[in-house]
């Protein structure tokens, strides 16, 4: 069973997105790729789904957006946006919700724009149709939105074609389009992965500002813990289709409760700049559907015991914490190492020599 959402307490905002017991299958139901995922994103809150490829984070995000590929299905679980139940919506209803209440940005902004229309038109036209604005008024709104996402000279940007803009500018255009319908939730799926370091920092700050100013709920999906360590309020660490740790970002980063989170923190580039032995996570995640009954991380875990693989491990509250849960039998007796806040973290040596552990599947 999923851990129940934490008991009501003074919370930042009303729940915007509620995912409850979500299962996603691939290969026409033959393989379970996401198992029993539950979480809530509140207004003004940034929640990050973090994990390696194959962890189920992207499928979870696509299920929330109603953008599942053929053969991929949600056999169980509920996804609600405010009071609206999203699972089981037909395509027309989905499209209405995606354009307005639900916005999304992805990794490759160029491929989501029409190359033969100016970017201003691609933002103004839907605004004009939806809000029944005049062309001049729609243009004014579009220029305002371009300014709001930090594009310099928004009037000029309005009349540019996608190929005339840099990757960072295109991502800002996409964000402007995504927030133009005043969505309650913005999903950013690896939205800064392909950007230059300087631009990535700017786009993350933009998302953070939109969250603060507009009360937008943010769902950030990424493989790179470092990217979201600073801008998310809450971390959901996914492994092999399950959430293995869930808690406030600052607490999880400072003192992880799951060995996989510890491993992710160790490989994440979090400000250590000195010459050092780079850490790796030995082995590979299991292929979907091949995991045994117990802990799915056990084969790669330094701390695993026989009990870990014998039976399913539940996502339980972390003892002595508030609003944190972990899927690990040994959580209570492990003292895992987090990332220190000051910049210069001392070099660490990995627990074992991992160079040759990657074996063919």
């Amino acid at each position, binding site marked *: 069973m999923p851990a129940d959402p934490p008991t009501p307490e003074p919370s930042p905002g009303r729940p915007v997105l509620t995912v409850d017991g979500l299962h996603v299958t691939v290969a026409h139901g033959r393989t379970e790729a996401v198992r029993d995922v539950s979480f809530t994103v509140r207004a003004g809150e940034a929640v990050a789904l973090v994990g390696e490829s194959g962890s189920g984070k992207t499928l979870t995000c696509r299920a929330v957006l109603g953008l599942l590929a053929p053969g991929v299905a949600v056999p169980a679980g509920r996804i609600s946006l405010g009071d609206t139940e999203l699972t089981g919506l037909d395509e027309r209803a989905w499209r209405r919700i995606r354009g307005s209440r639900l916005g999304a940005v992805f990794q490759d902004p160029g491929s989501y724009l029409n190359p033969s229309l100016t970017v201003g038109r691609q933002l103004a036209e839907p605004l004009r149709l939806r809000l029944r604005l005049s062309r001049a008024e729609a243009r004014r709104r579009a220029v305002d939105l371009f300014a709001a996402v930090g594009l310099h000279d928004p009037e000029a940007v309005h009349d540019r074609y996608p190929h005339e803009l840099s990757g960072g500018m295109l991502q800002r255009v996409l964000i402007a389009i995504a927030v133009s319908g005043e969505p309650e939730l913005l999903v950013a799926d690896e939205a800064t992965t392909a950007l230059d370091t300087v631009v990535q920092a700017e786009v993350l700050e933009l998302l953070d500002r939109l969250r603060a100013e507009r009360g937008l709920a943010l769902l950030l999906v990424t493989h790179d813990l470092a990217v979201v360590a600073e801008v998310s309020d809450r971390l959901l660490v996914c492994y092999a289709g399950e959430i293995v740790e869930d808690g406030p970002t600052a607490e999880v980063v400072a003192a992880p409760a799951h060995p996989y989170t510890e491993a992710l923190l160790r490989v994440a*580039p979090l400000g250590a700049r000195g010459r050092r032995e780079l850490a790796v996570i030995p082995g590979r995640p299991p292929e979907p559907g091949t995991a045994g009954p117990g802990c799915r991380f056990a084969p790669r875990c330094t701390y695993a015991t026989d009990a870990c693989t014998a039976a399913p491990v539940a996502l339980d509250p972390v003892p002595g914490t508030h609003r944190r849960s972990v899927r690990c039998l040994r959580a209570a007796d492990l003292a895992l190492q987090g990332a220190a806040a000051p910049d210069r973290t001392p070099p660490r040596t990995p627990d074992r020599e991992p160079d040759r552990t990657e074996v063919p599947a």
Partner: protein
Amino acid sequence: MTVTTEAPTPAPPAPAAAATAAPRLRIRGLDVAYHRGEPVLSGVDLDARAGEILGVIGETGSGKTTLARAVVGLAPVTAGRITVDGEDRTALRGRALRAARRAGAVQYMFQDPLRSLDPDLTVSRLVGEPLEIARVPAAERAERVAAALDQVGLDGALAGRTPGRLSGGQRQRVALARAIVTRPRLLLADEPVSALDASNRNHVLRLLDRLRHDLGPAVVVISHDLDSLAGVADRIAVLYRGRVVEEGPAEAVLTEPLHPYSALLAASAPSLDPGRRADLALLRTPAARPPAASGCAFAHRCPFAGPDCAPRPAAVEPRPGRLVACHRAPDWRSRLAR
């Protein structure tokens, strides 16, 4: 100068600290321009020594890929010299250039292994191909392919697979095995880890680190991401709009940058340091102007730029081993008071 087409001899293993030896790669006054357009690279000077990892960092359009392509003869050099072990690569033409390429002493590892590896060839064919081109006898080839796969930590059982049936990290290691199978004296790796997750990224970087110790080539790693260079690079050169704006020991450049652009890069990388955002605010310009045609290439984005930044800054060496091209290098940091 011509090169023999004999199979390349292994480079003598050089310790990483062989800093006194003549550089294996030497680039002097390099200009590159496509179709008589604006220069992509201007006046680039760089050295890489045997057994050393030189990191080249820059944003999209900074010319970092062009720099690597110029070294292997794939970009139009309009001025300057590139030498590898004293041999002038820029002077090679026609038959001599083809012979030099075949010999495989300089290897280029392309950005995207999925697109640069032939999807129909097996791993062993892909890795053996540079040896076929270098006319290494078949018997020796098989042995060396196996050794190269072993060196990059790939299981021999994968040798019969095609790239489509490998993970991203495995594909990148196939590309690396292919690059080292000729035992190159110089290896250029263009964004070798940008498509990989953090664990696989570290894995490939560690391999590069070990290979330069074991095989002794000079390694140039090109990246837009400074975290791909921290930890393995010995020295870092920062490229901005086709010019080297700073160069020095990796850790010093990343933690104590001398150029405002290097400082902006370092402060932009993800970190848990709470002071970073304050730094960032001071290192950015609220509204960047269009770049000037002459003068300092970074002035249009530099919060410290003034009228005296109009002439082009020459690279100076304020401290031994550290180069910076910035008129404000002596004093900009004093304006970064927290």
